[in-house]
């Protein structure tokens, strides 16, 4: 595949433009990074890792949580076979993925700092409030 120039790429991206529909929270599985990204609100954001699996997206404007990234989804599915119970039609509630990570073998014996506990609580609440599900269609479920 021939590489586009930066200018050609910019033109192609801007030609596509944003999707002209009202924003709804969504989660998407990215097979290239084996990660699920969750977007709870439409905002410009910065990222902060809270542990080896989860990165939180915060609004530049409000510093509120507006999304997250969960890495190593296929490993998590392997390590937490009980997750299969809450997967329906290859869809799973994000809050279940966060909890599965917290209860995974890697994490269960680790001390959870107050900050991390608070962030996880907020993340789970945002995921629950929006009712967002991740579609695991492309992951090895």
């Amino acid at each position, binding site marked *: 595949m021939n590489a586009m120039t930066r200018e050609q790429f910019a033109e192609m991206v801007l030609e596509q433009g944003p999707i002209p*529909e009202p924003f709804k929270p969504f989660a998407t599985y990215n097979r290239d990074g084996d990660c699920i990204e969750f977007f709870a609100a439409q905002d410009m954001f910065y990222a902060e890792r809270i542990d080896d699996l989860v990165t939180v997206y915060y609004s530049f404007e409000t510093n509120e949580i507006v999304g997250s990234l969960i890495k190593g989804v296929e490993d998590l599915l392997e390590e937490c076979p009980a997750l299969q119970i809450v997967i329906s039609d290859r869809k799973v509630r994000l809050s279940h993925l966060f909890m599965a990570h917290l209860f995974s073998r890697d994490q269960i014996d680790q001390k959870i700092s107050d900050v991390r506990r608070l962030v996880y609580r907020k993340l789970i609440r945002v995921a629950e409030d929006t009712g967002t599900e991740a579609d695991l269609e492309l992951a090895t479920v």
Partner: protein
Amino acid sequence: MAESKNDGRPSSIPALDLDDMMSVTVSADRLQAMRRLGAGHMLETAHLMPGVLARPEAIFEGIREDSDEDNSRRGGEGWRCYCGTPDTSYSLDGTKLGARKGWVYLVFVNKEKVVYNWRWERADKDDPELPQNHQKRFKERVL
């Protein structure tokens, strides 16, 4: 969802490979996600991400155990993080803004040379061209 002639097609763009340039493919999944987030994200995707890939301030490779980008359990060998401090940024509605002082723009590339994530993170207080905790997160700085 609105259709576009480029939907789902991978796009290949240049990235610095130490002394030379190489081609990397931009994740179509991530591009589609950015489309749903609005004009500011599309503009940063169009301009900032390719700019950092072509002219990074630093490139980190691999990950340390219990660290970030990519799946520490799989080693992260060959995964790269390109780091830059663009002189522009954008608001959600697409208004052009200046540089974000105290922040770096990171672009993550997997070992198949697919760009799968790009985003702002806090800069290191002592070295504002590098990300916070870079010493712990990556195995090696290659640029």
